[in-house]
């Protein structure tokens, strides 16, 4: 990696101040994306602002009908949280399926959400669950927050601080992993909650995680795997690569939607 300044602030305010003063500084949380990019010299920030010293960004709590997860909460902590397992078992199971043990003990929910990797698991879950993303300066609905591949509503230097998730009536997730990277190559998160039935897709689309209106309508009318089984996904919206064509991914989205509904029960 190239040389950079290293900061380890102990408050959100200090972190935001450093980031505001230096547009080429980058915040680092678990480092599961930024660190490999630095090591491969694909990224050359002037400074890295390590958020891991900010204690109050970590932890899971139940707040009425919502689960609130601090941005620095690690995937392992989400996967094993008693609150998450009781309220949204599909989210706990999803967190347990991210990467490998090392990744789950380093990577954070806020980092994954802010990065919005098209193959990451969380964005689809938050879209389907109708979550709200809280930052250092405002709250943003998941629908407004995720704006396509690696794109979010975050302004320069704005930090995700927590994620608020309404507890759904039921939710389920299923994904087909890329054989090599084990990232999602087609994943579907379905939820029936306060905001109605919502279905979000990750891994497969050619512009990041997105909601699928046709499947939402079908499941609203009839919550069953059969209701989505016949829904054809348009391959022109899909990615294609050496691991699978757009047609294959389109097919997988339907299969994973069926399985997600089955998993949701």
């Amino acid at each position, binding site marked *: 990696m190239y040389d950079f300044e290293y900061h380890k602030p102990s408050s959100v305010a200090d972190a935001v101040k450093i980031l505001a003063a230096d547009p080429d500084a980058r915040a680092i949380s678990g480092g599961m994306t930024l660190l490999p990019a630095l090591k*491969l010299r694909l990224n050359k920030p002037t400074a890295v602002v390590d958020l891991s010293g900010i204690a109050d960004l970590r932890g899971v709590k139940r707040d009425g009908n919502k689960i609130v997860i601090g941005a620095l909460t690690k995937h392992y902590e989400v996967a094993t949280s008693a609150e998450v397992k009781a309220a949204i078992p599909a989210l706990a199971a999803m967190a347990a399926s991210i990467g490998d043990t090392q990744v789950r003990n380093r990577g954070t929910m806020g980092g994954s959400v802010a990065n919005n990797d098209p193959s990451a698991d969380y964005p689809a879950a938050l879209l389907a669950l109708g979550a709200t993303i809280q930052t250092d300066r405002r709250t943003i609905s998941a629908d407004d927050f995720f704006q396509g591949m690696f794109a979010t509503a975050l302004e320069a230097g704005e930090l995700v601080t927590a994620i608020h998730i309404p507890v759904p009536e039921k939710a389920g997730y299923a994904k087909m992993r890329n054989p*090599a990277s084990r990232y999602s190559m087609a994943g579907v998160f379905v939820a029936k909650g306060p905001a109605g039935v919502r279905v979000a897709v990750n891994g497969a689309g050619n512009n990041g995680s997105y909601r699928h209106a046709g499947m939402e309508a079908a499941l609203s009318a009839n919550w069953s795997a059969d209701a989505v089984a016949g829904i054809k996904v348009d391959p022109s919206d899909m990615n294609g690569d050496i*691991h699978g064509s757009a047609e*294959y991914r389109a097919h997988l989205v339907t299969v994973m939607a069926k399985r997600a509904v089955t998993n949701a029960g």
Partner: protein
Amino acid sequence: MNVVQPFEGIGASVRRKEDFRFLQGRGMYTDDINRPGQTHAFILRSPHAHATINGIDTAAAKAMPGVLAVFTSADMAGIGGLPCGWQIHNKDGSPMAEPKHPVLAEGKVRHVGDPVAVVVAETRAQARDAAEAIVVDYAPMPGVSTTEAAIAPGAPAVHDGVAGNLCYDWHIGDKAATEAAFAKAHKVVKFSTTNNRLVPNAMEPRSAIGEFDTMSGDYTLYTTSQNPHVIRLLMGAFVLSIPESKLRVVAPDVGGGFGSKIYHYAEEAIVTWASAKVKRPIKWTADRTESFMSDAHGRDHVSTAELALDAEGKILGLKVHTLANMGAYLSTFAPCVPTYLYATLLAGVYTTPVIYAEVKAVFTHTVPVDAYRGAGRPEATYLLERLMDVAAREIGMDRVEFRKKNFIPVDAFPYQTPVALQYDSGDYFSTLAEALKTADWAGFEARREAAKAKGKLRGIGISTYLEACGIAPSAVVGSLGARAGLYEVGTIRVHPTGSVTVLTGTHSHGQGHETTLAQLVADKLGVPIANVDIVHGDTAKVPFGMGTYGSRSLAVGGSAMDKAMDKIIAKGKRIAAHLMEASVEDVEFERGTFRVAGTDKTKSLTDISLTAYVPHNYPIEEIEPGLEETAFYDPKNFTYPGGCHIAEVEIDTETGKVSMVNFTAVDDVGRVINPMIVEGQVQGGVAQGIGQALLEAAVYDAEGQLISGSMMDYTMPRADDLAPVSVATHTTLCTHNPLGVKGCGEVGAIGSPPAVMNAVVDALRDFGVNHVEMPATPAKIWNIIHGHRLAAE
């Protein structure tokens, strides 16, 4: 009788001595070694598959902080190219095309990753920073990555002067007799397939440290090698012109090789040569990206086969045509892989009376291709064992019965094949019978129905295979084009108080030699393995050796040790006869005890060794003091392990994902020294075979860009991709080496891919498929199922 307790000799599953070190993180790998004053090298590599270099400007790089030197090929006048260790001759008798393989690119780059310049700096980061400041003026040109495209008229030329990118056009077998057999065939079955290109991906990346001693003028190279003496020979004699007496090569703990660390690589020569220029030690260690684009790849064959059959299903003849990718340059042993390690195996375990094979080796703008676990034999076995299934189905015969009908009978050994090899022993009926029983072949249809009820397609596949290893008789390989002998060397040094140091020319990089070879000493000399040290991997310690590959360490290296131990016993008997006042002929030896036959007069090995080194009462006029013997062993033949592998898979019809549900291996590896280690070797080989069948593929685009250049896109097998692997052995002894051993390092990777693919095709039997190319990825299988459904609609 002084039997070692507990028994640690031949046949004991002794725990691996070296694992105490490895499991506690106390191994000493090349990158763990740091020499006083050490500097670091970074290799600048070509991003282009094919380009002319119009100029290289290193001025800015040389001025960067910490930089000691920047070298390009212009600085290396008088340095030789990397040599090829095997020369193949064309059909017309002319030698193969052997273009220069420069250490650093000379005016042209020929594959992504081709080394262009080297920076030596105080730190690795500084070297890398400076490398980014080197300006290379490339003029990119069209490239070609596949063999079919490379031999097509008008294809971009990889080397000037190599017409049609053809390295050689070789053949073996009796063409006329084969054509005659085909002319009277009742049925001819045709089959074409590609053997997918693989990236070896040893866990430890390659690394090298060069050190020049300004006082003595001696060079030392620490390197991740399977054969340090071979590297000393090749680099010293052909590249850098350093006599053996001035060059020491050390291969310390090495974290996996699978063939990829046999070869002499440019980086070894660069750090050795440059250490004398900067007069400081220089370390280079590959990162994983460099491994993908600079370690020799494996496989990459395109083949067509035709099988002639009579009306009863007896094989009359076999014709094979193969295109083999050599990559951009000839790696050390590349030319022998698709010829003498491949086409000679096409008889397999069958009585095929005539075989004719043609092999064209082709240059492309890709990383050089060389031996990878199995080397040629997996390609032959895959082609033959898939062909056997295709043929059985075409003639409507049960695939097991078809194989049995054509097996070489148990009483036919030694068996001469039509493609040069003479098998010494084997019993293919027994390994088959045991595997069928273990895998519950007979009960499969019930399991298929049960899977169907869950919406899964279940298939079972078999492979009855044979391989040739224990490489190799020097005179034979010499006549076939090898530029080296392939004997092995062992020294047994019995110390005064009876402990033993073994110097072996083989090299352990995961195989467990420190245990297995010690067990040979425990068995024969009666010395506990705790008192036996195996020394390998250092040309300054070990007299000579050809290293470890081709499952040769035990069959050839172990046999050399056995011969040396015979000499120890012979000398010990003379000393014992003197001490016990008996005639030599009356002294017997068994596991540590010399005895005058028929008496209770005995001397222990320790009595004898102490006497040999403290020769007060000693026949000094007749026998030299000391107790150390060296033997060179040149094998009389290859060894021929074989056996039967059975794979069972399930396919998720919705996603196309193939899951391994069971794997059975029954192998004849000759005498087994340590059953636990053999089981581990077979399981590891099977894991790599399943990797080739279902997961792994080095993918280049048509122009030579490496698409699967990282673990993000290259699918290495993980634990959950595998199935329980049941390993059993059924032994027939090798008849021509003193230990009766055949070798177990490669059988897993050789026998398993066709078993897995036969199972995949079997699972898809209702989809009108008679072949699926490796790797059987989910997308590929879904395309087959989906395509079939579309056709049916």
